[in-house]
């Protein structure tokens, strides 16, 4: 089981709810992914609008735990206020903290991220920070009170897969006891398997599922890939070697000549 702020979670797939072709497809993808945690957000809605309420009711009906985000925030005060507003709506101390620092790469402003995390942790939030694979930033986030880290493996929505395996390996090795969820940049199930085989605790997906030709089928494919990677990590994998090794025993091999 995955332990996130002392909540036991069975599925190691966290699923975003944005960019699906329809609410019905989203609901199907959530079901077939087996996820227990879905990410949600807050936005301005025109006066009298009821879309937010309809969406909220639909998500609640799916039964998954909600992880609200601060997507689109670019500064500390904006992110902190959004987190507080999310707690008011979603009635949870969980917050996926995003503070964007660059429009092109959507990479986090790690300085603002650490500061916002410090404020939110001191106010009782359980913060899931969207961060880079930088070890020093990770240390600062833990010092700020975070008990989970969510490093990217590539920029949001790029589907590029893990770009810096060395940094991810290093992060896993440095924080063996901290739940690490790869949050962004996964494009295909094999990418998810790679990071799960490395020992990451979970994967958060959105675009890779929502943008697939058949999102529900892709959600299920990811669930299998994540499960396979996790099982392989636990089973102990061979390290690659340069020279061939016969798999069939050579002792007793018949000699014809």
């Amino acid at each position, binding site marked *: 089981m995955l332990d996130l702020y002392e909540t036991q979670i069975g599925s190691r797939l966290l699923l975003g709810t944005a960019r699906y072709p329809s609410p019905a497809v989203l609901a199907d993808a959530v079901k077939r992914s087996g996820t227990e945690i879905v990410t949600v957000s807050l936005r301005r809605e025109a006066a*009298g609008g009821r879309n937010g309420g309809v969406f909220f009711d639909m998500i609640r009906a799916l039964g998954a735990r909600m992880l609200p985000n601060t997507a689109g925030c670019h500064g500390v005060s904006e992110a902190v206020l959004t987190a507080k507003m999310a707690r008011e709506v979603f009635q949870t101390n969980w917050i996926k903290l995003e503070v964007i620092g660059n429009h092109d790469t959507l990479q986090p402003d790690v300085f603002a991220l650490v500061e916002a995390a410090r404020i939110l942790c001191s106010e009782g939030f359980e913060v899931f920070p969207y961060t880079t694979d930088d070890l020093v930033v990770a240390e600062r986030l833990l010092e700020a009170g975070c008990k989970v880290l969510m490093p990217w493996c590539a920029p949001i929505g790029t589907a590029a897969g893990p770009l810096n395996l060395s940094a991810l390996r290093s992060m896993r090795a440095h924080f063996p006891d901290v739940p690490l969820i790869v949050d962004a940049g996964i494009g295909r199930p094999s990418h998810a398997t790679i990071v799960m085989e490395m020992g990451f605790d979970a994967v958060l997906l959105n675009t890779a599922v929502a943008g697939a030709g058949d999102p529900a089928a892709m959600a299920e494919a990811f669930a299998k890939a994540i499960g396979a990677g996790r099982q392989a990590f636990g089973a102990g994998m061979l390290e690659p070697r340069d020279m061939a090794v016969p798999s069939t025993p050579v002792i007793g091999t018949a000699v014809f000549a």
Partner: protein
Amino acid sequence: MRLIINGEPQTTAATTLSQLLAALDYEGEWLATAVNGELVHREDREGHALNDDDRIEILTPMQGG
């Protein structure tokens, strides 16, 4: 009264936050409100008096990644 509501200048006769929500036809337990960058809890909206040039944010749940 002149207010900035979700980034747009508007004029209203409402004098409290709860009156403003009613006047704009916002309803539902899923709303979150802030005035001048500070969260105003649901239970405090009725007593929250508005002033000229207050900046009001009214947010609702949305899909997110």
